[in-house]
């Protein structure tokens, strides 16, 4: 079910972007999508009974069943990229606000090309 849930999150994010015209809300939508896909990646690498892929005193041998470390590494990368995009998106949002005094894309009306 977790995959279904993660895909649902992607759809919810998509709905957010689709239905909202508020810049911040759209960014939240993007973040929800990213979250969804991150969970999806994790879910692909996970199996029942698998342990976190760290050798410790308890789980000491590589012969034990570890979940996929590659998926987790991918998620880490994806999160960081998401962070970068969100930061940029927020700056764009601030620029929009500074320029048009609104966060509502609907109120901007496209603006003529310079």
């Amino acid at each position, binding site marked *: 079910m977790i995959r279904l849930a993660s895909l649902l999150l992607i759809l919810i994010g998509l709905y957010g972007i689709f239905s909202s015209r508020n810049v911040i809300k759209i960014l939240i939508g993007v973040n929800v999508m990213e979250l969804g896909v991150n969970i999806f990646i994790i879910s692909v690498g996970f199996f029942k009974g698998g342990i976190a892929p760290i050798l410790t005193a308890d789980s000491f041998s590589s012969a034990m069943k570890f979940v996929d470390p590659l998926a987790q590494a991918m998620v880490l990368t994806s999160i960081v990229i998401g962070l970068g*995009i969100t930061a940029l998106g927020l700056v764009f949002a601030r620029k929009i606000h500074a320029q048009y005094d609104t966060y509502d*894309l609907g109120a901007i009306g496209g603006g003529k090309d310079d």
Partner: protein
Amino acid sequence: MINPVFMIAIPLILAFLSLVAARIKKWLLLSGVLINIAILFFLEKGETVIGGFKPPFGINLILDNYSMVGLALAGLLLLAGVVLSLDKADKYSTVLLTALAGINGMLLTGDLFNLFIFMEITIISAYILSTAGKKPEYSFNYLVIGSIGSVFYLAGLVVFYSLTGTLNMADLAAQNLSMGTPELLVPLFLIFTAFAIEAKLIPFGGWVKGVYGNSNRLTGALFASVYASTVLFVFGRVFNEVFALSGAVQTIIVLIGVVTFAFGEAAAFRQVKMRRILLYSSIGQSGLAAALFALGLIFPAVLLVISNAVSKFIMFSITGKLREIYKTDDYTDLKGVFFSNKLTGIAFSISAMSLIGLPLFFGFYAKLNALTALFNGGNWFIPAVILLFAIVEGAYFIRLLIALWAPGKEGEIADKSHAVGEIRIFNIKKSILVFILSLVILAAGLIPDLAGKLISSDSGFMGGDGPAFTMSQLKGGE
């Protein structure tokens, strides 16, 4: 022989250093793009393993003819762009250096996840460059759409990972998944969406109008040439070498490409603003190249991408500068502007005529190759569409050229007194640079076989066919 990883490492180091030594960042940028070109021709061909871990596990870079052409094209055009607009590029030195690393990485990498990262680097640099247009809502739009693409790409990639357990391109291709089956339709569509958004295919590239339409002389030229060609090159590799398209997916992608071509050209037809004309023409060309790539006609597609990139570079540079001078890029307000800028005007005209596909220019060779390859594949419908909209394309470009060259009221002969301004568009050095670039198009059009040989070494790309049409075959050579 130089390790190809330096194509990525050197610009990165310079980018990092440019933050520390902000005063000389302009020179770091210049040296970065110059070194990039300098080492390009001494790179070690073949596979380069990174970190000492063999491919399916570690990341590898692949330098074959195909990536070489992509690297050379992007590198040279970036160099030209930086030299031509160094004043504008100064501010974005760090971004451009990082973008160079990203572009080189995209073209070189042999790993799908690594490709994702380099693609993100490249796209984020594009987001930042797009803010030069002072229209944050368009940059924001681009960012959101681009992020959707990234999410889709990851989702699709993960499905493939779950099926094959690998992220390596060659390894994945070796699994011989049959891409035409419904089982792989959705993940393929997801990955395609990501590329389609970047490759400006209709209906995915909704960001293009705002971003290209508000670009300046630097960003417009780079977006339409360096970025566009890189994305298309990667598109070609991914959908030929990794996911060899077939069946319904192939048909759909080809259809999307052809529709993009037709719609893009139609949209360009009704524009009066030069950047808009160019941007819709870019969309159209991009759609055509994508369709050819999807059909596996790599060589014609590469020719098309090259000819389009060089032409668009020249035209966007000139257009951007015109807009700076006259505060408008509406060509009806710029009548006869080439009268006092003949060298620049000739460069612009050569580029436009090459894009239309008129003979004696490189675009003609590209078009002939595409047509021959399509007909050889038993396809007559796409050539018909191509030629039909080539008329439209020719119409708006010729109309543009006429307006920019020959001012005058209807019913009176063309007269310089009606020409707009006498300001020089580019100073003499830059005019010559632009002119020489256009001469490359002309020269490559006059000796197309040689140009084709230079590009493909006569062997075609990635095991595909070489030139479908050569001029030497006219003499009954083969």
